[in-house]
């Protein structure tokens, strides 16, 4: 199920309405007074409370990932043979794992790994899907036919199964996990951007640009591409949660970033397979972190989609 901007009239609207920020007239001459800015923020909280919650979670996640070294109490790799399976307490806030490593420090550093993989995979997958969709929608005919049949086939695989196949073929390491997750994100981005490109190529200004002698590639990148930015942002934000979840699922199955790297999925996997009953906290905290991250990105993605696409509000 595509969760982003759909086809048809919706895409057409994205295509024909010029982005307001491109106009000098759209910008206020003076900055908003402070009370107006506060009012706008309050309205946003009232209208999109879940989106704001999602935004706050995402901001916290980014802060934790960036300052992981300062926030974590200990080195996430430090093994303590005499401190194995310590319950959560004042010394080790989230307890310790089977190697005596501090779970809190590993969860904090895991945020960095998850975000790195999530952002890289979303950038690669969504950009590739968007580029192929742009070419497919703009050139149409045989190019479109061939590309869309490949996308149909790509969409036939359950997300996790496709990612597993890639990791099986390439091996489980950080770059390959990024490639595996990115591949699963291509079809949806492709479909959405293709629908925008399809409608933009029919517009008068594209015809005019062609008539003035602009080459196909110039028209494509100068006139059609900027219209795909809004749907790209919507899809990319919505995909971040999916990418983090897919990476964690691969890690859980023992096919993600290899140990001892503190990735949330693999932390959960170790706990489940060996010592779940003895030290449930080793599974509890990475799971909470994954859930919060996915929830935050999903909520933020929904809010951004609603703002850019008022037709879907409240649905």
């Amino acid at each position: 199920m595509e969760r982003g901007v759909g086809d048809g009239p919706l895409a057409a609207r994205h295509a024909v309405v010029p982005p307001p920020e491109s106009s000098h007239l759209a910008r206020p001459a003076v900055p908003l007074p402070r009370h107006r800015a506060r009012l706008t923020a309050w309205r946003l909280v009232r209208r999109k409370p879940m989106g704001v919650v999602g935004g706050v979670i995402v901001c916290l996640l980014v802060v934790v990932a960036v300052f992981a070294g300062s926030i974590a109490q200990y080195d996430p790799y430090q093994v303590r043979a005499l401190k194995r399976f310590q319950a959560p307490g004042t010394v080790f806030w989230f307890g310790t794992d089977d190697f005596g490593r501090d779970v809190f420090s590993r969860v904090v550093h895991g945020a960095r790994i998850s975000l790195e993989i999530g952002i890289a995979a979303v950038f690669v997958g969504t950009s590739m899907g968007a580029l192929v969709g742009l070419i497919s929608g703009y050139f149409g005919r045989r190019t479109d036919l061939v590309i869309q049949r490949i996308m149909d086939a790509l969409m036939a695989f359950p997300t996790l199964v496709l990612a597993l196949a890639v990791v099986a073929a390439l091996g489980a390491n950080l770059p390959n996990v990024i490639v595996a997750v990115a591949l699963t994100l291509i079809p949806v981005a492709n479909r959405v951007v293709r629908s925008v490109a399809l409608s933009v190529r029919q517009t008068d200004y594209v015809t005019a640009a062609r008539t003035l002698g602009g080459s196909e590639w110039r028209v494509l990148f100068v006139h059609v591409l900027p219209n795909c930015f809004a749907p790209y942002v919507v899809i990319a934000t919505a995909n971040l949660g999916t990418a983090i979840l897919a990476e964690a699922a691969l890690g859980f199955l023992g096919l993600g970033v290899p140990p001892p790297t503190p990735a949330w999925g693999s932390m959960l996997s170790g706990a489940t397979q060996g010592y779940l009953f003895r030290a449930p906290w080793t599974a509890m905290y990475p799971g909470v972190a994954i859930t919060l991250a996915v929830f935050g990105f999903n909520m933020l993605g929904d809010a951004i989609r609603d703002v850019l696409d008022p037709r879907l509000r409240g649905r």
Partner: protein
Amino acid sequence: MTRYLLRRLIATVPVLVGVSFIVFVIMRVAPGDVAQMLLSGESGSTASPQELHQLRQQLGLDRPYHVQYVAFLAGLVRLDPGKSLWTSEPIMVELGRRAPITLELALLAVVISWLIALPTGVLSAVFQDTWIDYVFRVVSVAGLALPAFWTGTLLVLLLAQRFHWMPPLGYVSPMHSPRLNILQFIWPALIIGYAAAAILSRITRSAVLEVLREDYVRTARAKGLRGSAVVSRHVLKNALAPVLTVSAVQMGNLLGGAVISETIFTLPGVGRFLVDAILHRDYPVVQTIVILFGVVVVVLNLVTDLLYAWLDPRARYA
């Protein structure tokens, strides 16, 4: 309807070819050398060139790509994907043993997802923007955010600590003991079913909201029908078509969920077979299962389209 059926069937062929092509490209043409990976194993040690050459010959990897692809397709068409490199057993025999387990899990999960999604989605729409709507929407959003592998883990923990229940080690067939079988399947199915219900509930709510604003619903109300009768007789019938479509499309994701659930609850289904095959670098098994999942999804999409056309004749002429 026959013309539509034929058109849909023909459209499925290129997708199936595409599915086989993608799996072939991923498994054979990708930069990682399968033979090298098989011989180096987990230790990462390098194999001698003779060993590599011998294994490539044995797996047919020394032939040109197009020859390999045709041989690969021929094997698929004959339903003979070969033998497992790990157990040396024919893959089809193993799949025949495991497929019913995954099928039972997926079907049970679909039933559970409908049992959760339909009432919550309809009530959410009927009581739009009330506390009922908010509660069900939060439950639905939670289902989207909660990873199945975490809820599954927590469920095992809860069942073990509170009820001293552990997942049985071996598979219990429904013929042998229906009660034990259901006890074994209900938990993993609940985990996948809840995740599926999260999306389905949103779709149901959306579809019901749309239909509730139709003129004929207003007419039904105006002629004095009770609210529940309007919903059950006039709204549900028309709102169910998109819900059915999404549910069928979700079956594909349920298969992905089965990989996780079968791993947590030690069910020897196709999903568990796939994970084991990847860990053992059993490439023929991996590519067969990945293709099988792809084909199942394509067939499900086809069946959904036909069902949709049967339910809504307008779709046949679209």
